[in-house]
């Protein structure tokens, strides 16, 4: 007697699927998707050619180069030093380690404008650090990069740290027993394991740096075609009551960031797929 059951299938023994799905979707829709849709809505009021002209204007293009370039370099530096810092914080013992570990999150908590002003104080030509350099730091792309390093610093460190903490030391030992030296072990065994975390941290730092405004404008110099970042251009458009112009550039930035995040997620998914199943 084969009996097909027609009752509604439970999704899981865990309760609250409908409720949590509903709440999550509602919250995300109201708080993220609906507001974000506005920039697409405003942009759509432009014709395609207007849109195109706005986003490829030489000053804007120059600012993309600067923003993407400086963000990329900052994220790279954060990736490299993030790994070193995470390594030192996890593996070594030295006085003041706890303090340093705690301070890593500071850029999240400090108002970005304050950070910008403080960094400018340090790196201006007559600043504490700036005076020791023969070249200008503040008001050049270098200064911008420094501000972006500051605000993105926690991402890589905090992503790599737990992975390193949970790293099976046995893998390192296996490598050592097989005759590898420390550098070989790091490059061939440890680094590949850290890579997903580094990439995620890099992506988040990069995305945040692209959008950063508050801390950068103080140290940027804001010279058109030279040290003008894209978020500043957006602000400029707003000052001219050009909402659609501002949103169209914002759309470009958002889509690029989104693609980067998606790409990173895709890579993660791909590597999981490859190694894990």
């Amino acid at each position: 007697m084969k009996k097909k059951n027609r009752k509604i299938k439970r999704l899981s023994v865990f309760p609250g699927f409908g409720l949590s799905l509903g709440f999550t979707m509602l919250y995300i829709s109201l708080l993220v998707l609906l507001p974000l849709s506005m920039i697409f809505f405003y942009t759509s009021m432009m014709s395609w050619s207007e849109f195109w002209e706005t986003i490829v204007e030489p000053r804007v293009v120059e600012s993309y180069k600067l923003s993407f370039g400086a963000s990329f370099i900052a994220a790279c530096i954060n990736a490299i030093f993030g790994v070193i810092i995470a390594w030192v914080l996890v593996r070594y013992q030295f006085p003041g380690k706890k303090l340093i570990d705690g301070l890593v999150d500071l850029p999240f908590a400090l108002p970005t404008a304050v950070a910008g002003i403080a960094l400018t104080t340090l790196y201006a030509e007559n600043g504490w650090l700036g005076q020791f350099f023969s070249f200008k730091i503040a008001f050049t792309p270098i200064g911008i990069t420094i501000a972006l390093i500051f605000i993105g610093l926690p991402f890589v460190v905090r992503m790599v740290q737990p992975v390193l903490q949970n790293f099976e030391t046995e893998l390192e030992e296996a490598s050592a027993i097989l005759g590898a030296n420390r550098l070989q072990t790091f490059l061939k065994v440890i680094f590949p394991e850290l890579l997903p975390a580094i990439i995620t941290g890099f992506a988040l730092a990069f995305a945040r740096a692209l959008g950063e405004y508050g801390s950068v404008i103080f140290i940027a110099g804001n010279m058109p075609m030279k040290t003008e970042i894209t978020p500043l251009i957006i602000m400029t458009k707003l000052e001219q009551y050009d909402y659609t112009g501002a949103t169209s550039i914002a759309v470009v930035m958002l889509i690029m960031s989104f693609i980067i995040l998606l790409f990173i997620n895709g890579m993660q998914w791909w590597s999981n797929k490859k190694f894990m199943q």
Partner: protein
Amino acid sequence: NTKETNQDVTAGDKKKLEILNVSYDPTRELYEEFNQEFIKYWEKETGQKVAIQQSHGGSGKQARSVIDGLEADVVTLALAGDIDEIANTRDLLQKDWQSRLEHNSTPYTSTIVFLVRKGNPKNIQDWDDLTKENVSVITPNPKTSGGARWNYLAAWAYAKEKYHNDETKIKEFVSKIYKNVEVLDSGARGATTTFVERGLGDVLIAWENEAFLSINELGKEEFEIVVPTISILAEPPVAVVDKIAKKKGTAEVAEAYLKFLYSDTGQEIAAKNYYRPRDENILKKYTDQFPEIKLVTIDEDFGGWKKAQEKHFNDGGTFDDIYLPQK
């Protein structure tokens, strides 16, 4: 203290009268003093208590906030253009708002001067000196800062006179000045900081009232003010945002508030805060502070804000020409 008065009233009787003055950045001390005087005045006149809320920010941003729904009863901004924008995009006040009060609806004015380092080491006396090759100039970006637009137009006015309206030469002259600009901060305060704190630049182009402020706040011993031969009359206008005031039932008090700026008390307070009062008598009292300069006006020399904005500051305007690679 304004703050306490505000709170008193907010907490006080039901028929509370409250107006919001949306202003631009460096008017805080001016209005802090003025509001107290006005509250006293209004209570004496009508027996009503009025509370005044203040908002400060970049002029353009403030205008945008009003357009987007910030319920200002009065706006006291840096540029007529900003108030025009409010009138145009949302019809919150009539298009001819500027003719409703005396002196172009500008109860106080200012002008553009130079701030140089003590002793004026580069011997900067006039606009010509800013075009010299070894002079480094600090001024904010006219695209993001309302004040900076006055700077630009002042330079333009000087060149216009010098080159007798030869547009190419004027442009070349202004362009030379801006080529000397080392840092183009997004706002006036940023520029001042760059000049004062970072020690960058030989000269800061600034509003007269801000130049005084920064000397007073940041060091009388280190800087001095240089007045050029020609400058522009900077007219920060004021207006009642009619529709909002009407809705809130504050039209009367708002109108009175602005009119009070023209009173002796108001003019005196403006002068004390380094704004040039419109009232001749009071201005005379402060001649030490406000030397005479030949001042052009935006209406006469530039055909009003709208035209000036379009010609110089919109995308593709003369300011962009200075920075964009020549085609």
